[in-house]
């Protein structure tokens, strides 16, 4: 269960969030839509606790922004799968190791690591690029590595920040159905996007955000 309650948060320079309420139940799929600069990425940062609210609170499963200790944050993040808007690949290792890293930090056995990593890469259609370095990939390929890394550990909640911005429509549809499949297996998904078209044709719940406020 994920819950953001009456959140306010201000960056040092004055921008920020100004009243965010959002709930994602276990296994639910929710879109977070809003124009550029509305605060979508900021909401996700609060969920994975890179930022902390000035008012209100964030609940992620058993962790609360009000009393989580620094030491617990890595364990919180291991329950999440995060597709970053700017990918954030590890530039010092190849595609395989980028994806495998999430498993390595948990101390998984190397046979499991190999199996799971290869499966995740297969699901985003990048098996043949597993030994390339991130800088040798096209924009869309990098984005799919970021996606593979987010889903490899079958997270409790998947946070996807504009996961199809660098993909052509056909690949985008494939990725979306991949997220659907994951969701069907029980992973809750919160996807930030400004792809209104995508959202218009969906039956899923939509939360709108504008100027740092969620609307109902």
């Amino acid at each position: 269960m994920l819950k953001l309650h009456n959140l306010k948060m201000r960056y040092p320079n004055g921008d920020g969030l100004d009243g965010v309420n959002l709930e994602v139940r276990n296994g639910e799929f929710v879109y977070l839509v809003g124009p550029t600069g509305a605060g979508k990425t900021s909401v996700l940062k609060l969920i994975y606790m890179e930022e902390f609210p000035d008012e209100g609170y964030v609940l992620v499963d058993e962790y609360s922004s009000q009393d989580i200790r620094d030491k617990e944050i890595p364990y919180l993040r291991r329950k999440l799968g995060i597709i970053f808007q700017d990918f954030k690949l590890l530039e010092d290792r190849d595609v395989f190791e980028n994806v495998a890293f999430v498993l390595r930090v948990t101390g998984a056995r190397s046979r499991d690591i190999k199996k799971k990593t290869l499966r995740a890469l297969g699901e985003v259609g990048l098996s043949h690029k597993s030994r390339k370095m991130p800088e040798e990939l096209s924009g869309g390929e990098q984005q799919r590595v970021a996606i593979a890394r987010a889903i490899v550990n079958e997270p409790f909640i998947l946070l996807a920040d504009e996961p199809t911005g660098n993909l052509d429509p056909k690949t985008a549809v494939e990725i979306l159905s991949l997220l659907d499949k994951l969701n069907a297996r029980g992973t809750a998904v919160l996807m930030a996007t400004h792809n209104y078209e995508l959202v218009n044709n969906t039956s899923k719940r939509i939360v709108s955000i504008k100027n740092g406020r969620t609307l109902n």
Partner: protein
Amino acid sequence: MSLFFVLREGFGGLRHSRFSGFVATATVAISLILIGIFLIITVNLGKFVQFLRSRVELEVFLDDSFDEIKIQDLTDEIKRMEGVANLTFISKEMAIREFQNLFKDKQEDYFETLGYNPLPASFRVKLQDNYRTASGAEVVFKSLSSLEDIREEDIVYTREYLVILEKYIKFAIAIDFIVGIIVCLSALLLVSNNIRLIILSKNKIIETMKLVGATNFFIRTPLFIQGIVQGFLGGIISALFLYTLLKLAAIEIPGFISVDWRIYLLLANLGILLGFAGSFAAVRRYL
């Protein structure tokens, strides 16, 4: 967390940032070479000072009227004096022999002609280590001249030589000390700076690792390993370098001062320590 992976990350880091690693290792090596040379200088400066100071002694000339009992009393009294290590009695006969030795028995017959021995007997007074200084010698000089039957003019020592020597020795020790401190501190600063720069250059990567669930321990351990391995390598290199250098010097300069082999062990260990302390300082501050 798998130990194997952490080790691999550490050594992988070494392989990856090969040139940075080389410079870090070189920094440790250079620092340790300087520290090693500093140690060798210190040890040998000590020996040199001892050598120069061992030449310091006071000579006390004795009146011919002193009899054996008197001389024995004086010997006991001087031996008990503050600062006196030991003393040798040079009898009138020994003085003649030394004199003749000095002038190579050319004038063998002078003293025979003279019919008696004009040279006085004397004590040669050696000082304790810490009294082999201008002021220490002065203290002993004072005690000796305060003795009954011994006049100031009967005591001879190379006061001027001692004063100049002293000046240079103090200078050398002061410099040695300052250089030692600077070298040690700068070694630490440089090593820690190197790890810091490695951390900064990996800043984004480390940020990302944290965002995908890596613990601090997971991120730090490879850096420690890297620092320690580089430190150890630097230590080995510095030991090899100094060893070769001293061997070459010994060939060039026969009788060149030899060096205790334990210094090489010390350097290797200091390397590990430096590597660890450097990574620790940088990691504490920047992670």
